[in-house]
C-alpha cells in the first residue's frame, strides 16, 4: 500500500487558555501580551490527533507545517513527540501579522515545495486571532475538495470520508484525495505526551526543515499584513460577586436556594 502523505498546518500562539488576568492589551503598540508560554493552537493539536489516528490504520507520513515570525522548536517539537514524522518551519520577521489570505498563500507555496500530498489538515480556527479562515482559503488556493468542521476522519481507497458538524447534527461526506479538511475539537484531544518525552527529544536530532522566505518564490502582491487601526481592551465583564457563606455545604445550598428562588 502506498504511503499516505498528510500535512498538518499548525500555528504557534500564546496559550489561549491562560487566565484573562495574564493578558494585557498595549493599545499604543497595538499588541496583545500574554504572560504564558507559547503552545500549538488547540484545534491544530486536534488536527494532528486526527492525522495520528489515520496513521494507526494506514501507512502514513505526517508533516507538521508552521508559518510565523519567531517559531520555537521547543514548542513545535511536541508534535514530533506525539508521533509526527517531520517538522517544517517557515519563518520570517515579516510573517508576524500576515492577513489570512497571505498566510494561506505562504502555506500553499510551502506545500507545493514539499511535493506530493494526499491530505491537508488544519484547525477550524486559531486561538489567537480567531479568524477561522486560513484552512478554507488554502483549500481554494490549491483547488482542493474542502471539508469544513470535521468531527471524525477516515481514509480508504484514495478517498477521505468525514463526519462533519452541521446544525442538524452530523453530515457524512466523501471526497477524492488530495483534499483539505478543517478539524474541530470533536475529533478528540491530542494524545498525551509526557513532558519528559518532549524534554528528552531536545537531546536528539529531530527532523526539522527550516524554510526561509527566499526559498519560496513569493510574489509580494500576495503578501499583505492586516490593516489594524486600533487594538482595544475588552469591555469590563467583572461583577461584584457575593460569596454564599455557610458552615456546611448544606447551609450554603439552603442560602443559594433562597437566592435562586428570588431570581426566578
Amino acid at each position: 500500500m502506498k504511503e499516505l502523505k498528510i500535512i498538518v498546518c499548525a500555528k504557534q500562539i500564546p496559550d489561549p487558555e491562560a487566565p484573562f488576568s495574564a493578558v494585557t492589551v498595549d493599545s499604543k503598540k497595538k499588541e496583545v501580551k500574554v504572560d504564558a508560554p507559547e503552545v500549538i493552537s488547540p484545534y491544530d493539536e486536534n488536527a494532528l490527533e486526527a492525522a495520528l489516528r489515520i496513521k494507526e490504520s494506514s501507512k502514513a507520513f505526517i508533516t507538521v507545517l508552521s508559518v510565523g515570525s519567531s517559531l520555537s522548536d521547543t514548542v513545535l517539537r511536541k508534535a514530533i513527540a506525539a508521533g509526527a514524522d517531520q517538522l517544517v518551519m517557515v519563518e520570517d520577521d515579516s510573517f508576524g501579522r500576515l492577513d489570512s489570505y497571505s498566510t494561506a498563500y505562504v502555506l500553499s507555496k510551502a506545500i507545493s515545495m514539499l511535493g506530493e500530498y494526499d491530505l491537508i489538515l488544519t484547525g477550524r480556527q486559531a486561538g489567537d486571532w480567531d479568524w477561522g479562515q486560513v484552512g478554507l482559503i488554502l483549500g481554494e488556493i490549491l483547488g482542493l475538495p474542502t471539508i469544513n468542521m470535521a468531527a471524525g476522519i477516515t481514509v480508504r481507497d484514495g478517498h477521505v470520508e468525514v463526519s462533519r458538524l452541521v446544525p442538524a447534527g452530523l453530515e457524512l461526506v466523501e471526497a477524492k484525495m488530495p483534499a483539505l479538511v478543517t478539524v474541530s475539537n470533536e475529533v478528540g484531544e491530542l494524545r498525551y505526551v509526557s513532558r519528559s518525552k518532549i524534554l528528552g527529544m531536545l537531546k536528539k536530532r529531530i527532523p526539522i526543515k527550516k524554510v526561509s522566505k527566499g526559498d519560496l518564490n513569493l510574489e509580494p502582491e500576495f503578501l499583505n499584513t492586516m490593516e489594524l487601526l486600533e487594538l482595544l481592551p475588552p469591555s469590563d465583564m467583572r461583577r461584584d460577586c457575593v460569596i454564599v457563606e455557610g458552615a456546611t455545604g448544606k447551609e450554603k445550598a439552603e442560602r443559594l436556594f433562597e437566592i435562586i428562588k428570588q431570581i426566578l
Partner: protein
Amino acid sequence: MDEILILAETKETQIEKSTHELIQAGRELKSALGGILSCLLLGEGMDGAVKDLEQYPLDRIYLLENPLLKDFSPDLWVSSLEQAVRNLKPKVFIMAHSPTGREVGPRLSARLKSTLTTDCIGLRLDPEDRRIVRVKPIYGGNAVAVLKGKGNPELITLRKNVYSPAAPEGTKTEIIKLQLALSDQVVKVKALRTIFREQVELDKAEVIISGGRGIGAKEDFQLLERLAELINQRGIKALVGCSRPVVDKGWLSSDHQVGLTGTMVAPGLYVAVGISGAIQHLVGMVRSKKIVAINTDPNCNMFKVADYGVIEDYKEILHHLISKLEGLS
C-alpha cells in the same frame, strides 16, 4: 450607487433571526453610506421567506431559486454566491457568523481576493475614504481589534445577537429573480447522509444549568439534568449547557456547548458548575442577567464575573438544591 448586500439564511424555509439582525446592521450602515440595502436569498420554495423579508426595510430582494440549492451544499453555495456577487458588485456583503457564513465567507474571500473580517461585533463607515471599519474581538475576547480590509466587496461575517433584529417597516421592496449558471459539476465533496440529532436550543432557555470539566464524569450530568427538570416543572424553561472539555470527552453533544465556538446565550439565570471561566467560555454567557458559580477553587475566573459564588463541591450543593426543589412539589 453603493449597494449593501446581506445574505439571508433560512431554516426549513423560515428566515433566521440572524438575518433580521443583518438587516439592522445593513440599515445602520446605509444611513451613513447612502445607496441601497438588499438581501440575497438562495434556496427552493422560498415564497414564505420572501413574504417575511418584504416586511423589512429592504430596497431589493434578489431571489435565486434552484432545486440544487435546496439543502446547504457548500460547493454549490460558494459558486452561486461568487457569481451573484460578481454580477451585482455590491460595495459591502455581510453574512451571519453562522455555520453557513463561516464556511462560505472565507472561500468567497479567496475567490474574490477581498479581505473577510470574521465574527464582527460592529461596523462603521470611515467618511474619509468611505471604507468600512470592522470591529472584531480577538484572543477569545481578551482584546478588540479595529480593522479595515482591501478588495471588493467589503466582506464581513457578523456575530449573532449583537445587533437587535430590525423592526418591520413598510418599504417598497423590489424582487429580482437571479438567473445563474449552476451545475452540480462544481461539487467536489459528496454528501452521503445526515445523521440528525435533536439539538438543544440553548438560546431559547430562561435558565441554563451548565457543567464543566469539574463535573468529573458523564453520569454526574444527571444531577444537572434533574435540577433543570425540576425547574421546568415550575414552568420555567431550563436546559443543560456545558463547556468545551465536556464535549471533547463525549459527555454531552456539541449543541450543549456555550461559548465562542458554541452557542452565545443570555438567559435570566446561568448556573456555572465546575467551570473555571476561560475567556472563550465567558464571552458566550457574560450577558446573562444573573450568574451563579459553583466551584471548589475560590480563585477561579468564574467568580469574577458571577453575581453569586458558592465555594464547595458541586455534588453536595446540587443534591441539596434538588431535594429542596423536590420538597416544594
